[in-house]
Each structure stands twice: as structure tokens, then as C-alpha cells.
């Protein structure tokens, strides 16, 4: 029970924590003050509460698959915002002009959407354990431990990315955003398959024997790079297509820098 709640909350918190720490580290690289994070977290939390209050209504949309469609749209939107963000960073490194207000706005939206989406799952999980006080205390303890681990990993990644040798250029951060973004895109496609909005086929391959999704490494890789043991062709195409776009922009941010020095 305790371990279950640690894992449930850790998985949700980790997904947002990674995204937040990369963006905060990048805003350090770009010389943007980090105050936007507070706005983003506040907005995300409010979104999560609103989302959980309207959960039943949203679930009933589109013949009972409203949650899948809304979640997939949010993830797709996060991906598009990541592309816009990466392009602005590229534009920034190519000139002295700073589109910093727009960059900040995009970062706020990305983090708020991610926190709202993951936060609603944590809130509903906690709500599921309100039947008795001992149950709730168990779930809450696990949730606090899970959240603490997730946030610690995020902080660790932030310091790693802020290390002068890495933090000088936005390239590493953008590569990580590419991996996270591709994972989000592939998850969005999976949600639409679950909703029967996108046709599903037999998986392209099955790597369960090599690395099971239920293993700790599998779960971690799912969060980090969107690992799936049995993906379908549509998911794989969206994953690599989405990854290619963001990686191209990331690589381009490294090119002008090496020319000018």
C-alpha cells in the first residue's frame, strides 16, 4: 500500500519534475529570471484542481472517451509549445534579440499544462483513499515520499544541467526536451488509440523479454524517453518524427556558436 502510493505519485511527479528542471536550467542559460516558475506551478495546480472537479463531466464527453481526448490534446499542445520554445531559443542564440517575454509565456504554459495533467492523477489517487483515516495517512505518507524522490531527481538534473560546461549552451537541454517531447507525442497517440480515434494494429515489436515496462528500469525509461515494450507503427512514427524535429533544432543551436568562436 505504502509502496504503491510511492510509485503512483513518483511516476506522475517525475514526469513534470524533469520537464520543469530542464526548462528552469534553460532559462538560466538564456539569462531569463526564474520567477515564471511560481506562476506556472500556481496555474498548473489550479488547473489540476479544476480538472479533478470536472473529471466526471470531461470523462463523459465523446461517448465516454473524453478524458483520453482531452489528455492527448494537452500532450500534443505541450509538444507544439516545446517546438515553439526550441525555435525561439534557436532564434535567440542567432541574434542578440531576446524574445524573452514570449519565451516566458510559453514556458509557463508548458509547465502549467504538465502539472495540471499529472496533478489531476495524484489528486484522484488521494481522493480514492479517503474512505478511512488510516488508509488516507498511508496514501499520504507514500505520496509525500514519492513526491520528494521525484522533486529530488528534478533538482539533481537541474544542477547537472546548470554545470558551467553544459549550462553555457542550450543544446543539451533541448536534446532532453526532444526526448521528453517525443515520449509525450507517442503517449498522446496511445491515448487516441485507447479511445478508438486512431486505428490500432498489432505492435511492431515486443521487447518485454528484454526490458519489461513493469520493471523499475522500464518505468523510469517510460518517464524519461517514453519507452514502450509493445509500440504500434503509428506510435513509433510519431515518436521518431517528433524527436527528429526537436533534435534538428537542438543541433542547429550548437552550429552558429561553434562558427562564431
Amino acid at each position, binding site marked *: *500500500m505504502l509502496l*504503491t502510493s510511492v510509485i*503512483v505519485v513518483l511516476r506522475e511527479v517525475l514526469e513534470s519534475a524533469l520537464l520543469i528542471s530542464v526548462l528552469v536550467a534553460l532559462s538560466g542559460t538564456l539569462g531569463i529570471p526564474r520567477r515564471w516558475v511560481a506562476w506556472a506551478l500556481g496555474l498548473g495546480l489550479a488547473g489540476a484542481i479544476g480538472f479533478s472537479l470536472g*473529471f*466526471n463531466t470531461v*470523462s463523459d464527453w465523446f*461517448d*465516454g*472517451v473524453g*478524458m*483520453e481526448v482531452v489528455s492527448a490534446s494537452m500532450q500534443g499542445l505541450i509538444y507544439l509549445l516545446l517546438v515553439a520554445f526550441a525555435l525561439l531559443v534557436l532564434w535567440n542564440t542567432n541574434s542578440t534579440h531576446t524574445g524573452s517575454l514570449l519565451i516566458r509565456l510559453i514556458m509557463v504554459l508548458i509547465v502549467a499544462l504538465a502539472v495540471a495533467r499529472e496533478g489531476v*492523477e495524484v489528486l*484522484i*489517487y488521494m*481522493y*480514492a*483513499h*479517503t*474512505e478511512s483515516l488510516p488508509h488516507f495517512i498511508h496514501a499520504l505518507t507514500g505520496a509525500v515520499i514519492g513526491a520528494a524522490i521525484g522533486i529530488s531527481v528534478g533538482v539533481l538534473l537541474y544542477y547537472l544541467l546548470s554545470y558551467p560546461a553544459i549550462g553555457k549552451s542550450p543544446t543539451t537541454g533541448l536534446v532532453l526536451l526532444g526526448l521528453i517531447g517525443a515520449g509525450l507525442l507517442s503517449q498522446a497517440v*496511445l491515448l487516441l*488509440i*485507447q*479511445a*478508438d480515434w*486512431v*486505428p*490500432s*494494429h*498489432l505492435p511492431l515489436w515486443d521487447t*518485454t523479454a528484454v526490458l*519489461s*515496462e*513493469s520493471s523499475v528500469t*522500464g518505468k523510469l525509461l517510460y518517464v524519461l524517453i517514453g519507452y*514502450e*515494450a*509493445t509500440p504500434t507503427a503509428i506510435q513509433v512514427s510519431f515518436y521518431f518524427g517528433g524527436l527528429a524535429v526537436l533534435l534538428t533544432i537542438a543541433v542547429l543551436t550548437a552550429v552558429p556558436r561553434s562558427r562564431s568562436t
Partner: protein
Amino acid sequence: MSNASGWHGLKRLFVQITPVIACLVGTEPVLADKPVFKIEISNHLFMPAEIVIPANTKVKLMVHNLDATSEEFESYELNREKVIMGKRKAVIFVGPLAPGEYPFFGEFHPETAQGKIIVE
């Protein structure tokens, strides 16, 4: 004579290609009516805990949560996860799947909520 064999070759090619196109475009599975399977959640248990579904077919799972508390239907093997609030029903599309066993569980109460889909 050569014309006829050419026609047969073309027809054979068409027969071979059609399922591939249908598969890629995905018209067939989306338009066809899917078989429905019902599962209930009661006292954090799935009932029935095992259901048998046909291979290579998309099916519609109707999961009715009779408990007052919410549950999350989750399966790594099926690549599915869906929150079902207390006293509510949820629709989950599953498949097409190759024959085999696909376990699922209730992520909020995995100690008791366990089940599997057997594909034959």
C-alpha cells in the same frame, strides 16, 4: 493466354495488397462494430477476473466500478490506463491482440484488484 495470366497476376497482387492498405488506412477496424465485454469492480476486485476475447479483433471493454472509491484500470501488456471514478462506468478499447495472456490490475488497489485477458 498471356493476357489472362497477366490478369490473374494483377488480381493476385490486388488480393495481397488490399488487406495491407486496409490495415494502413485503418478503415476496417474503425468502422466495424466491436464485441463488448463487461467487467465489474466490487470491493476492489475485478469480476470476472478473467475474460476471453478473440485474437486479432478490437473489443470494447465496459468497466463498471461498483465501489464508492475510484480505481485505475492499468495494464502494461495491453498499454492501457484509465481512471474510473466511484459508481461509474468507463469504456476502454483493447486490441487487436495476438493470442496470449494479458494481465491487468487496479493501480489504486493492486493488492486485490488483479485480472487478465486471455486472447484466443
